[in-house]
């Protein structure tokens, strides 16, 4: 980008392009792409933290084991508090989601990296998986009475059909907001960093100002990465609670 600075050409969205890694121009279903690379790195990083970190099984944990234990306890407590005690069965699934999103977000902050969670295709699959799981689970556990989730008995009778309509709409909007929230946050933050970085190249000596801005935004992005992983996970727990206990 710097070599084009005279033309003030900033391409903040280029970082999100899915590219084949092993040559070729087309991206087919089985092409090894930068998506493959960064998802693999995410899986490796999570495994390093959770599997290699806990390798010692020490009674008094080492530093790396403490990190693994803190992450475990944090998500476990979240599932138990939000989804209830019978939600603990689904803890491995929720832990997988949390760790995958957290590490994808954080790895995406490395320079020249690719942020898989900034793609709506990825977050849509994550959200759809949660939505389908939770809906199927609700019907399997409670049968037709799962529909009482939309029939709010504490409201006056006249209002209940209207409320039911609103509840149904909000229920189906859930996966949409669930996925777009994550992808939007990741994409916007990275694009902003890139735009400021482009300014830095174009402004020469005054580039120090955009560099300060990039530093500040980077810190903010670090926060957003963690918070968005947390938000995605806790919303999953909330939806899970609805499926396990639909009668409010």
């Amino acid at each position, binding site marked *: 980008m710097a070599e084009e600075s005279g033309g003030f050409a900033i*391409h903040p*969205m*280029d970082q*999100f*392009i*899915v*590219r084949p890694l092993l040559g070729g*121009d*087309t*991206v*087919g*279903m*089985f*092409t090894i*792409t930068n*998506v*493959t690379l960064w*998802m*693999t790195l*995410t*899986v490796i990083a*999570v*495994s390093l933290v*959770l*599997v290699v970190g*806990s390798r010692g*099984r*020490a*009674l008094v*944990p080492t530093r790396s*084991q403490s990190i*693994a*234990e803190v992450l*475990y*306890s944090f998500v476990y407590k979240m599932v138990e508090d939000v989804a209830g005690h019978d939600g603990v069965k689904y*803890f*491995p*699934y929720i*832990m*997988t989601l949390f*760790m*995958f999103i957290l590490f994808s977000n954080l790895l995406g902050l490395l320079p020249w990296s690719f942020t*898989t969670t*900034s*793609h*709506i*295709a*990825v977050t849509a*699959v*994550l959200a759809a*998986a949660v939505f389908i799981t939770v809906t199927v689970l609700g019907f399997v556990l409670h049968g037709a009475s799962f529909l009482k989730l939309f029939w709010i008995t504490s409201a006056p009778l006249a209002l209940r059909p209207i409320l039911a309509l609103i509840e149904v709409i909000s229920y189906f909007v859930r996966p949409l907001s669930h996925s777009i929230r994550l*992808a939007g946050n990741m*994409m916007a933050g990275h694009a902003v960093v890139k735009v400021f970085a482009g300014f830095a190249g174009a402004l020469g000596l005054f580039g120090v100002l955009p560099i300060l801005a990039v530093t500040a935004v980077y810190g903010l992005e670090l926060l957003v990465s963690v918070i968005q992983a947390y938000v995605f996970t806790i919303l999953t727990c909330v939806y899970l609670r609805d499926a396990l206990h639909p009668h409010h």
Partner: protein
Amino acid sequence: MAAEANSAAGMPQLEFATFPNQVLWLVLALVVLYLILSRIALPRIGSVLAERTGTIANDIAAAETFKLQAAEAEAAYHKALDDARAAAAKVVEEARAEIQKDLDVAIAKADSEIAARSAESERRIAEIRESANEAVTAVAKEATKDILAAFGVKADARSVTATVNARLKESAA
């Protein structure tokens, strides 16, 4: 590729041709990660945490037992100390009684010796006084006879003796 992305409103996220690729790798990554976590990582960390909770509970229980034992040992120690103190007091008391007995015997012996000595002394003093009295009587009789002879009176020895004795008795009284 970049040209295509730019043409699609500049959003590579809406490049639908890449969706199957992304979804495939995402699903694979999630399945692999789920297997790693649910088979290896989570059971291991869970068991370590459970083991730690158990160990801490056990250690606290053990500490409680040790505390009780320490209290017992302390009580036993104090009891032994008290016993020893009582035994020592008894020994001291016995020794004192023994010494007192010896002392009493010695005092009694000394007393009797003193009594004997003083009796002897009194007897001697009485003897001396007796002989002194006799001497005084004899001297008085002689003096009386001599005085009477000087006056030219032939004294009757018997009456002189009686008179002198009577006068001596008077002065002694």
